[in-house]
């Protein structure tokens, strides 16, 4: 049980920076490379890394498997909801300019992009973790010398 000491210490050190980096990629997508999709994958990979090092059970205690389908659906609904919101305001589907019509620097576009990227990030992170849970939860975890 106490094997992989170096791996576990490394994972513990890296876990928080990976989460922080995912948030950076998520909210900095307007200015640098990245966006919701990459951020979602990075966020999921942090939890997958933890699950690989410390076992699936401990990861599932933080993020129960029942949350993930909700997160997947919620992400898509946030995205589509922004589109419906712009329609309700009287513009086309996903026409963000209507959110802040009087802005001189296209604030509506910025708000809209941040919102849909949030939806993408949530949907992707939940889906990646869901797929990992589905694979890893099937079999009892392989013993350390199984490889």
């Amino acid at each position, binding site marked *: 049980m106490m094997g992989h000491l170096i791996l576990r210490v490394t994972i513990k050190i890296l876990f928080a920076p990976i989460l922080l980096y995912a948030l950076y990629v998520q909210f900095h997508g307007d200015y640098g490379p*990245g966006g919701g999709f*990459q951020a979602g994958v990075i966020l999921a990979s942090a939890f997958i890394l933890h699950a690989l090092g410390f076992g699936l059970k401990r990861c599932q205690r933080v993020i*129960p498997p029942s949350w*993930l389908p909700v997160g997947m659906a919620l992400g898509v609904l946030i995205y589509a909801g922004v589109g419906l919101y712009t329609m309700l305001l009287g513009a086309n589907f996903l026409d963000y300019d209507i959110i802040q019509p009087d802005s001189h620097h296209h604030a509506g*576009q910025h708000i809209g992009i941040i919102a849909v990227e949030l939806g993408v990030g949530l949907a992707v992170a939940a889906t990646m973790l869901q*797929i990992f*849970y589905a694979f*890893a939860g099937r079999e009892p975890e392989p013993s350390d010398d199984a490889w």
Partner: protein
Amino acid sequence: METIYQTSVSAVLIVEVAILTLLVVCAIAMVRMRQLFGVAMLSGIYSLLSAGFFVTLDAVDVAFTEAAVGAGISTVLILSGIAMTAKREKAVSRRRALLPRVITGVVGASLIYATIDMPHYGDPNSPANAYLGRAYIEATPNDIEVPNLVTAVLASYRGYDTLGETVVVFTAGLACLLLIGSSAVRGGGGDGRDQPEEDEA
């Protein structure tokens, strides 16, 4: 006109040749290896090398995705898949391997043939750069005002497409949940909540 996009022998070219050589070596090693754990590791390395190559092509967003998905998540998923099946690939007789080899050879040759018609890298007159690409580059500072063009195209100009992609990701997760999720395996065990908790604190 010819001299505009002619690349001299530079550091970038050396890096590109090195990465492409490593990609080919990696691919051949993956084909020849029978131990699936090694193949999974090599596919992760292959993805990381591809990500490096995309960076030299100035496609940082694609490189980012390739590194995160290809080298990160896919490798973990392949390893999880190997944990469920055999650790080694069975040898296939030469006669059975003949047809796949012919198909792979024909497809690969036609792909290489197709690259002959492709415009040069960075050609400003290529269809992708001349019309729509130029229109996006010119319009984004006035329409959207975000510095990253890729985000502007993905989330705003092509927001509808990206919604479709998000639905595709959602569908993939849903399919995995239905096919191999815990409720699909253990006779309708819900979402794993009824599993015995061995290490309850």
